[in-house]
């Protein structure tokens, strides 16, 4: 099998499906097609050895069809003539049987689609050895501790076409590494997501994880209650993800299940959130062919917008913001590339810099500057298993993970056992609640490539810890 770095095959496939629909359903049928070729690979390690090592290649054809006032969608992995014809036929058959769709928003009109950011070919087609070498560096850097995590590379090339004459192509590559070091029941974490595998420094990440694990040993139990906190970027990523899924989701907003009130000062003035897919390597269009661009969600504390696909945008009269996605009709259009802008105009910390200034609990000077301002509070590395108790107020419960420390007079003095918390995320970031922001955002990988969360460390006046993890 040969590896194609281009998008020609996908473009041809998309055009063929549109033509098949025209022949089968006539010129009145509206069709939109996204063909995506993916090369995904992930090298996973635990107990300091590679125990799972996988790669896959595949093409997905997604078709949405609106004919005679009815809409249906189909997805297939077969790209031979028979497979494409079968996809068109079963989607067409489904469209005949479903009820009318009076809210059909129509197709994206022909629109120029700018090229996305450049793709790093070395990342797109990285070998298993290249991923394994970064794992080797991580494992060596933890110097005898147990190491676990993954190194991942992904490449996607996509082509969109619809029966209104709109088309677009694009490519994207991403690399991510996420690992922990473990000692005596204490874990330390380091993770980073980048456009280039070459920007992932396994040794620096391993050193950081190991330093934090050693600093997390022999934790004490503190009573639950409200504490001032410094949240490291991995923990802040959880806030961004939940705000995106439940708050800045246009469908939930339309259903009155979101806290978001555009125009209202719902956040601290230091908070500016932008969904910014093209800040990284990404396909420059969404499932519906709409151009993806930066969407300001919060400007200086004031809620600005929520994400829409064509359907939810039509319902509120605002149009799509480029957030059409598989499952969007059910789950809603969700921002998946949210940045919490840092306090100053500085760039993203490369992975090497995440290891700079390693001193144990405080993994970098940026976090150290925030910790220095805390008279008594907690430094939290990461959150885990967060679930929403009340979507309207976005009350979330979850646990701390991978290191918590008591901070006294600006210095981490003791490792602390994990806590359970129950907290309203928008309220925790509300006016007057954000005491400081870091200046060095770190891009955190999501569980799925193409989705990421970028933030610096943040210092909050209060976080509601409702129990110790041990009881």
């Amino acid at each position, binding site marked *: 099998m040969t590896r194609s770095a281009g998008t020609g095959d996908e473009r041809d496939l998309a055009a063929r499906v549109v033509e098949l629909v025209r022949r089968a359903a006539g010129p009145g049928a509206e069709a939109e097609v996204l063909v995506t070729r993916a090369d995904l690979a992930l090298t996973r390690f635990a107990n300091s050895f590679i125990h799972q090592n996988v*790669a896959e*290649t595949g093409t997905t054809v997604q078709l949405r069809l609106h004919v005679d006032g009815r809409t249906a*969608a189909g*997805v297939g992995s077969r790209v031979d003539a028979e497979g494409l014809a079968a996809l068109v036929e079963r989607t067409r058959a489904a469209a005949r049987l479903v*009820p009318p769709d009076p809210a059909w928003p129509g197709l994206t009109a022909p629109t120029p689609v700018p090229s996305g950011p450049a793709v790093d070919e070395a990342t797109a087609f990285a070998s298993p050895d290249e991923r394994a070498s970064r794992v080797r560096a991580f494992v060596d850097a933890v110097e005898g501790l147990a190491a676990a995590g*993954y190194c991942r590379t992904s490449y996607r090339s996509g082509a969109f076409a619809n029966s209104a004459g709109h088309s677009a192509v694009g490519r994207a590559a991403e690399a991510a590494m996420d690992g922990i070091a473990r000692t005596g029941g204490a874990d330390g974490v380091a993770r980073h997501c980048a456009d280039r595998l070459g920007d992932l420094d396994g040794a620096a990440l391993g050193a950081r994880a190991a330093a934090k694990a050693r600093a997390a040993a022999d934790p004490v139990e503190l009573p639950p209650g409200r504490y001032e906190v410094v949240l490291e970027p991995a923990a802040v990523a959880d806030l961004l993800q939940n705000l995106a899924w439940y708050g800045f989701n246009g469908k939930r907003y339309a259903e009155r299940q979101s806290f978001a009130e555009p125009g209202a000062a719902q956040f601290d003035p230091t908070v500016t959130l932008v969904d910014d897919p093209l800040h990284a390597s990404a396909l420059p269009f969404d499932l519906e062919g709409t151009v993806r661009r930066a969407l300001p969600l919060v400007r200086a504390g004031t809620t600005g917008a929520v994400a829409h696909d064509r359907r939810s945008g039509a319902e509120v009269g605002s149009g799509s913001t480029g957030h059409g996605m598989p499952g969007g*009709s059910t789950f809603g259009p969700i921002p998946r590339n949210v940045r919490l802008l840092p306090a100053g105009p500085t760039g993203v910390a490369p992975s090497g810099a995440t290891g700079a200034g390693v001193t144990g609990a405080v993994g970098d000077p940026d976090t150290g500057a925030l910790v220095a301002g805390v008279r008594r509070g907690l430094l939290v590395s990461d959150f885990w298993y967060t679930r929403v108790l009340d979507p309207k107020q976005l009350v979330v419960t979850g646990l701390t993970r991978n290191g918590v420390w008591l901070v006294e007079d600006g210095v981490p003095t003791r490792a602390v056992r994990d806590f359970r918390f129950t907290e309203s995320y928008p309220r925790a970031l509300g006016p007057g609640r954000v005491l400081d922001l870091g200046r060095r955002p770190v891009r955190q990988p999501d569980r799925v490539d193409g989705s990421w969360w970028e933030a610096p460390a943040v210092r909050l006046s209060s976080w509601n810890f409702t129990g110790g993890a041990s009881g």
Partner: protein
Amino acid sequence: MGFDAASAAVQAALDAGARYADARVMHRRYESMSARNGDVEELTQHESIGLGVRALVGSGWGFHAVPELSDAAARDAGRRAAAVAAASARVPGPPIDLVPVDAAVASWASDCAVDPLGVPLSDKGDLLVGATATMREHGADLAEGLYQIWDTTKWFVSSEGHRIDQHIRECGGGISATSIGDGETQRRSYPSYRGQYGTTGWELVTSLDLAAHAARVAEESRELLTAPECPAGETDLILGGEQLALQIHESVGHAIELDRILGWEAAFAGTSWLDLSRLGSLRYGSELMNVTIDPTIPGALGSFGFDDEGSPAVARDAVREGRWVGVLAGRDSAAVAGLAHGGSVRADGWARLPMVRMTNVGLEPGPHTLDEIVAATDEGVLMDINRSWSIDDKRLNFQFGCEVGWEVRNGRRGRMLRNPTYTGIGPVFWRSMDMLSGETVAWGTPNCGKGQPGQIGHTGHPAAPARFRGVRVGVRA
């Protein structure tokens, strides 16, 4: 075609240096429909076919998957899997063995009276549209209905001589009503949020009779908006069967996964509080607690004929009279742990590596009924239908929220309570179980996430209402 491609992939992996290889060809058709407020919201139909091959070179595993079944593509996938496995040697681990299993040559199919993909879309749409319209008429601000269908055929071949094909049909569905107040939302679902599922035909959905429950769940969701808050404190807790099924899933099922116990999931899903040295002696719960791992239960969502590395479905004990006695394992993890059998390895489609997953992990029936449990309770809270779930990475500290609670006083069910939550530590909680009903239902969970890349597992959990003493309830922000 499936056996030919899988055999070619296995042979190519062996030719490239693998000492063991297996391959799965899977063809899956998926259909789902959702309705909202009396209209069909989304109809989705997926079809996917491909091959995944796993190779063991030295002590390193490699896996490669492709969506093609030609001889050339299959052989290329086998060679690539071996190359990936060879790269694993850059960071090698201890030697890997596989516990022995007979090289089965077999076919298996799940029971299915009514082919769910054969039911006309219009009938299925009418069911959801009608139920959601009824919920709207009875006060729901947001009325949702959903069904899902998976029809999977797979062909498994191993270098040890396995040659197994299976046809598994799964489906299910449910309805939910949400009422929106000034500062909060309240939801009621039937039979659970996003539905009940099984390895069965459309007869399961028919038996649920969604339409008959639509008005009630809508009215209860509105009633919850003005119901008193669940009180905070320590009290006796009665859980309905659906919530107990998720409690089993999270605090027993995941905890007894051997890959977690061995640390293989440490960085993501987490580890387990269980220590293998105490297998056979650790007290997990009260003597009423008998948990089985049983993929042979007809119709339950975690049932199969063979797992995805060719081990036959066999029922085993996980907890017997409160004592921990068994784990969920694969052939390699069982060998590492010195255990005799795997049998719980599954892959979410052809593009995913088979890994340790739950099958049907559930409680054997107890001697009581829910009515008897309520009658025997002086003061407590009855909670049912999961709304939120969270548990730590060792599967010890949990907090669950339910859709609805009821006050229980002097042996009677009283007022409805909103925002019921409870929290605890797994073994302490299970040791406090003093009454268990025999009204068992094999609840299906079709959304169990695990692994990197992510995999979605389908698991079953036989469960019935039970009582737990002295549980902390009413945790809130």
